[in-house]
């Protein structure tokens, strides 16, 4: 059967992507050099656990979807997930690929567990995934990804509890698959607000505590209302609720193998990596 070998939560932002490109072209801004360096252990971990598939819970920023049809949950089932043009033109980075057979399996399993996702056979992906992927995987990007897009832009958002349940459903769906090693990633947050007079607010206390408590205290985190997370961390900190799906997709007993945090300028940038020792320790 398929098994989840581990997972991580990671922030995303447009500047994370453009600053990577700048870093590769010459030298990093010192603030982003910290993030680049801080992600090297995550890159090594990903190479070590050798996933056959990567499930990514993320949010689109009106770069593929528009409000003409904006799904609460959407699943990408396609051979490729091209980079979305966010208005500044495309970046020179590899293209994410998918595995439709795995995608349809996950689709059947998730819908079977009453997650009635919108299925997209064409899905452009924005900085939600493309901003951090180059830090963690060298080109070419051969590991297929399964993007699950979650509405984080317009209320009502799916509840924290619902995202936790999504994670459980992902775990069950992976278990029902043929032999495969799967990593689950959630991306969004951490503290930031990019509109209104509170623009640029940063709450390192919240972010560091979140990284520390996501592993052992999911139930208590899920109980926190979205509005209170937004009040303390900014409107876009609500993206952290997607990390609940990643955590809930993993076993109760896990090892937290790495975490890192920095705040370059507008967005709290954090990562926390969990490993399922049952599956990653034995060879193969």
């Amino acid at each position: 059967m398929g098994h989840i070998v581990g997972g991580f939560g990671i922030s995303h932002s447009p500047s994370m992507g453009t600053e990577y490109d700048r870093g590769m072209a010459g030298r990093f801004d010192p603030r982003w050099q910290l993030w680049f360096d801080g992600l090297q252990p995550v890159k090594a971990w990903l190479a070590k656990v050798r996933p056959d598939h990567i499930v990514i819970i993320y949010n689109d920023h009106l770069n593929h979807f528009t409000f003409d049809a904006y799904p609460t949950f959407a699943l990408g089932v396609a051979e490729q997930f091209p980079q979305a043009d966010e208005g500044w033109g495309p970046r020179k980075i590899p293209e994410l690929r998918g595995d439709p057979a795995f995608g349809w399996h996950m689709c059947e399993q998730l819908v079977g567990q009453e997650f009635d996702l919108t299925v997209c056979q064409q899905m452009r992906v924005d900085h939600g995934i493309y901003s951090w992927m180059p830090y963690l995987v060298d080109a070419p990007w051969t590991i297929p990804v399964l993007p699950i897009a979650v509405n984080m832009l317009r209320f009502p958002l799916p509840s924290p509890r619902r995202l936790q349940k999504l994670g459980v459903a992902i775990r069950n769906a992976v278990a029902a698959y043929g032999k495969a090693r799967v990593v689950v990633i959630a991306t969004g947050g951490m503290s930031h607000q990019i509109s209104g007079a509170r623009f640029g607010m940063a709450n390192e206390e919240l972010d560091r505590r979140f990284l520390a408590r996501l592993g052992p205290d999911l139930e208590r985190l899920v109980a926190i209302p979205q509005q209170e997370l937004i009040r303390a961390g900014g409107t876009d900190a609500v993206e952290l609720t997607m990390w609940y799906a990643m955590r809930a997709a993993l076993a109760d007993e896990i090892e937290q193998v790495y975490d890192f945090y920095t705040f370059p300028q507008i967005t709290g940038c954090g990562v926390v990596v969990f490993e399922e020792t049952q599956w990653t320790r034995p060879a193969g």
Partner: protein
Amino acid sequence: MSTVDWKSLEPPHTYLYSGAMSSAGERLNRFALSLKIPANRTAFLADPPAYVSTYSLTPLEADLVARRDWTGLMQAGGHLQAILKIAATVGQSLWHIGAHCAGMSVEQMQSACPRRLGGLPPDFP
């Protein structure tokens, strides 16, 4: 610079994007998101009034676009992520939007960020 209420979830401090905002901003968002296509960006920059008229913006909305009134566009129902496409097209960035929202210059905002606060939600583990 206006006084910021760091705990407020109300405008002008914070905009929580609702269904009602989404309906109010329907034309604006459709116009803004059309600019994801390079040819549309070119057409808009070549003749803004003509391009805007194809999206049935009201005179007020068209004026907000022409004046790069980012805060006004949000109050009119534009979503930040849509307005960002207008900013990108006219050579501005998220910094311009943030500075406008907070009533500062871009340089002031860039040197102010990160605007550090503390505090946890009630019952945070």
